[in-house]
């Protein structure tokens, strides 16, 4: 195929292009309404403040159609999950809802409970309305939704629902509700979050039916086909504008027990502008490991795609159509591929996912100075840990929840500095940050400080965003904190002479004020009067720091993002 300069207007279109724009907007609006519902009605802070959930619409042939406002890692693989509905049920009908959290059947990881609602129009299953929410607890062996040390799924021990019917005729199937209530640590919170998630999926169902009634089945079905084709053309065009090349990058996950050298990730990318295809080959990687960090198939595919999509024109629609232009090559029994049962995928949305996204987006910077990104920070240390215990203020009620108070620094890009409230590569800038007051209201903790760390953003022509540091502790009774300060030994790297971001750390402050280092991965218990201090990591820089615009260095100094020493030694700034 010859390289094209532009994209031909639709020629085989049966639909008015104006109507295509209108309907594309309508589907996005439905997803926004689903999202708004879940955000405002969720019970746990991870949903109603941090927004760790996603809504999307999938077609009956398993193409992602709209996922606006969603977490990248959550939904791009939604089309891998929906086939389970008919695979396991031969009596699917209107009014059904399914609970699906099985990483071996297309889900991300066990903590992500997904509600799938098949949307029927005149007896035909036309769309699936999906809402996926990270749970406060999912019945794991320990009070955390992340189990890094789990040797396999049996040690992980979370409750698995391999696409199980949870509603029939729009009514709960109480057997399933009881199973969850009897095993999940905070059953009322789980139930409230279930209602919020179900509510979002049902709102999606209702609106999709109204949409089809308004425009007619034929029009909507041809719209879907044309919209996906249009998106594919946009993606093809964007790829055709890239230089051709084979790119390689590696990253390395920090060491784990039994894996003293860490876990390497290798990515090979083939950019083929003439074919308008990008191929990401992940087959040259190690086998599954006896730890909770193996990726599910959904996470492997999605991570590679996120890395690519981060480097492609942001106005190209992200859906099943544009995804056709990205080929991800995976192999069985691979830590970043298709997991081999019973390997644990407990942390399949964070650790190796983030390493994989980072290596992919950094590889693109080899194409030239206007391409790719540096690496984004991805620790889940003290300030993003899972806290649990009993709350003396409400008769010793149990609490367990991941807090999202702290933050990681975003990567520098070829045109600007990193984003400060970045989150992590897997959900870059889509999760929100918790309010200190909301956290202290809901949980018996006191936060002593929370601020940005000077010099922690990787230096470069464009600077990575700095890391946050937090200090907090329990107020009345002992509290458990489960955390995973990745990037404690292998920092987020810079691109094209940009420097890496600062590495994470976790410390304990004793009652006498003395501080000791804690292991970067662990579960620790704190008494009242004891505190945990933790910094996440900073984003990588891009380009030579000496080439940084002097006015930017001056502003960084004035605003306290960098110290005078770093300005002089790293940026070569002499007060000009």
């Amino acid at each position, binding site marked *: 195929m010859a390289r094209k300069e532009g994209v031909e207007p639709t020629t085989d279109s049966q639909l008015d*292009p104006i109507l295509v724009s209108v309907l594309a907007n309508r589907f996005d609006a439905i997803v926004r*309404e689903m999202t708004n519902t879940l955000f405002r009605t969720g019970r746990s802070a991870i949903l109603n403040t941090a927004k760790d959930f996603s809504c999307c619409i999938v077609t009956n042939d398993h193409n992602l159609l709209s996922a606006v406002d969603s977490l990248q890692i959550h939904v791009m693989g939604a089309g891998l999950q929906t086939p389970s509905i008919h695979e396991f049920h031969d009596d699917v009908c209107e009014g059904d809802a399914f609970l699906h959290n099985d990483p071996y059947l297309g889900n991300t990881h066990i903590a992500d409970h997904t509600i799938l609602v098949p949307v029927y129009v005149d007896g035909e299953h036309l769309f699936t309305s999906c809402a996926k929410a990270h749970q406060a607890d999912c019945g794991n062996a320990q009070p955390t939704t992340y189990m890094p040390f789990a040797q396999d799924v049996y040690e992980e021990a979370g409750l698995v629902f391999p696409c199980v019917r949870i509603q029939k005729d729009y009514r709960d199937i109480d057997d399933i509700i009881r199973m969850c209530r009897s095993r999940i640590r905070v059953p009322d919170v789980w139930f409230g979050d279930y209602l919020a998630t179900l509510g979002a999926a049902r709102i999606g169902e209702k609106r999709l039916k109204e949409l089809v009634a308004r425009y007619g089945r034929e029009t909507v079905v041809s719209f879907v086909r044309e919209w996906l084709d249009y998106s594919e053309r946009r993606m093809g065009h964007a790829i055709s504008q890239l230089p051709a090349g084979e790119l390689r990058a590696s990253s390395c996950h920090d060491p784990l027990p039994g894996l003293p050298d860490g876990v390497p990730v290798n990515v090979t990318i083939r950019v083929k502008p003439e074919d308008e295809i990008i191929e990401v080959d992940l087959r040259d990687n190690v086998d599954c490991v006896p730890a909770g960090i193996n990726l599910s198939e959904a996470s492997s595919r999605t991570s590679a795609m996120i890395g690519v999509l981060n480097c492609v024109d942001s106005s190209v629609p992200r859906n099943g159509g544009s995804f056709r232009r990205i080929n991800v090559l995976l192999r069985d029994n691979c830590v970043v591929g298709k997991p081999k049962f019973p390997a644990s995928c407990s942390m399949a949305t964070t650790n190796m996912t983030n390493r994989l996204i980072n290596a992919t987006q950094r590889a693109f910077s080899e194409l030239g100075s206007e391409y790719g990104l540096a690496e984004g920070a991805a620790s889940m240390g003290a300030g993003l840990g899972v806290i649990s215990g009993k709350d003396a203020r409400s008769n010793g009620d149990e609490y367990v929840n991941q807090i999202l108070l702290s933050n990681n620094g975003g990567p520098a890009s070829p045109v600007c500095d990193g984003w400060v409230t970045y989150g992590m590569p897997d959900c870059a*800038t889509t999760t929100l940050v918790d309010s*200190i007051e909301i956290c202290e209201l809901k949980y018996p903790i006191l936060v002593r400080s929370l601020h940005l760390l000077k010099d922690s953003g990787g230096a470069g022509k464009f600077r990575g965003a700095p890391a946050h540091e937090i200090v907090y502790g329990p107020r009345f009774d002992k509290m458990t904190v489960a955390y995973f300060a990745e990037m404690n030994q292998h920092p987020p790297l810079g691109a094209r002479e940009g420097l890496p971001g600062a590495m994470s750390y976790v410390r304990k402050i004793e009652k006498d004020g003395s501080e000791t280092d804690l292991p970067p991965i662990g579960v620790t218990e704190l008494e009242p009067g004891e505190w945990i201090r933790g910094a996440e990591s900073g984003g990588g820089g891009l380009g030579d720091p000496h080439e940084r615009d002097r006015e930017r260095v001056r502003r960084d100094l004035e605003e306290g993002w960098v110290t005078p020493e770093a300005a002089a030694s790293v940026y070569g700034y002499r007060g000009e």
Partner: protein
Amino acid sequence: MSSYYRIGIDTGGTFTDVVLADDQGRMLIGKALTTKEKISQGMLEAIGVAAEQLGASTADVLAKTQLLIYGSTRATNAILEEKTARTALIVTEGFPDVLVRREGGKENPWDFTQPFPEPYVPRRQTFELPERMTAEGEIFKPFDEAAALEIISRLRQENIEAVAVCLLWSMVNPAHEERFGALLEQHMPGVPYTLSSRLNPVIREYRRASAAAIDASLKPLMQEHLREMETDLQAAGFRGDLLPATSLGGVAAVGDVIERPILMVRSGPALGPVLGAAYAEAETGDQNVIVCDTGGTSFDVSLVRDGRPVRSRETWLGGRYSGHLTGLSAVDARSVGSGGGSIAWVDAGGLLQVGPESAGAMPGPACYGRGGDRATVTDAAVVLGYLDPDYFLGGRMALDVKAARQVVGGIADRLGCSLHEAAYGIMTIASEHMVEATKEITINEGVDPRDSLIIAGGGAGGLNLVLIARELGCKRLLFPRTAGVLCACGAQFSDIAREWSASRVMRSDRFDLAEAGEVLDHLRGEMAAFEQTFENWRVEGFRQEFIVEARYLGQVWEIEIPLQSDLKTQQDVEALIAQFHDAHEAIFAIRDANEVIEFMQWRARMTAQLKKPAMEAVLEGGAQEPAAAKRISTYFRETGEVEIPVYQGETLKPGMRIEGPALIAEPTTTIVLHAGSEARVTALGNHMVEIDV
């Protein structure tokens, strides 16, 4: 001659709109260019234009004006243009980055070319004060007097002009904020400051800090502006009361606004539902009203639900996530970048897009003939024949049809369609953004647009509102005769409004009647004290309302429930609980009937009712058929090219009916009636459009 007047003013970035009402209930429109150096100049000019229509002089009218209501974009623009005071922020030690972090989030997560936004107050002007309260308001770390004084001496060195104070949990125990305020008064007398616990006593440190910072930063500027305005108006002969409009959808005394200038932020659009409620009451009695105001660059939509303006705490200045949140409860007026000046373009995949980029006033749409070379919504309207090139702005501006056809033709070439199809496409896509914005504010809040009345206005509001209403399934659409100056007209119908709130968490499963009584009594006390200040005012009556913000246990976002009793008995409480479950289900489609409800914020709202223009029939009825001024060639998708009649608005009399397709040309807006719609001139002289859906 009228015995008294009331003047409503809306000072926008380009035009100053005036609506002058006399004692007969007549309303006259004046428009003049905004004079940024001296706002009162353009204001007086616009008043003059309106006065002239009564054969009166500006001085004459001003001398007899009792109330002058002033809505302005000045506060909003000062923020967006970063022309506010040099402001310092005082925070609890350990938490200097509250304004940097905001609440996280970003509009397009795939876009890595957007720089991280600056905090409202720079980090170098943020100071950490050693102190700390707990969630229950107990002192965890005492206020450090010496450190506070040290901070104040640094504020002086840094020539700080205004100070915002936001300490953790100050809404539960404001003692430390109050202490710092007292030290400021002592050591920096005359420097304005804002305490977050007084301005906006709600949970969430970012929202309090942002509100306090915005408020403090506006104080020097708005104090000077309002004082100068008072002086200028007095010099011109005005002896009545100047009342600035506020974001609560009402007005307030100058002194109150000077104390809390953040109330003037987005006060113009907040007048929308005021107008909506007044016109709906006079015309149809509708309780649910959608108010749409289409200007040159934006489309503002707001809502009246159950007879009251819908409010929100989510007003962003300068974009969601990346701008600044005011954090205050204010009229929920959503704005999308879609208006008459929005630019149309074709993307890389061959699809037509409209906005958010706008041609603005300069160069403006191509048809303005001022060098605009990109197709806008207005150009599309000209191509479609919807705007009479000889009667734009009442004939004061000629439109360049050739230029409009040329730029829309460029779009048609790229789309591979006809000129008319391209123009109609531009209109449709622009309407689509407006439809979505309207759906978001109605459906997400549990209001069905199909059962609502739309009231529309703004210079570009008549072009596509019939299309929008039809898409929403809405059968009735009202264009007030003053549609072109919607906000200035809303000012004519506003009352003095003030709110107080108290944080007191109560649960449905152990509801304490005595405690609830205490909270309500406290709020009643505030209202009584406020009422005392009205002795000299021309107030016709007072209205009190109580609202509680409530949620299910564990949720963090509340919904507003208006109290329908004074909560004296257990039955009253049961009714309130039932009301909450119903409201939650209406908005979110779920009900958790066994769950505990938490009542968080208690609010009291007092309205001091002002005298308003009488909404009475002022025009003579006309039995005769309306006479078209001319016929004009237009294009609609359903019919293709078609010749339709054009009616001049001022020639139409109550009772007349006009069947679409037709155009009604008013001096400041043109109403496009599509086939299947019919306009009727009401007894009050407004246009009520009925639409087949």
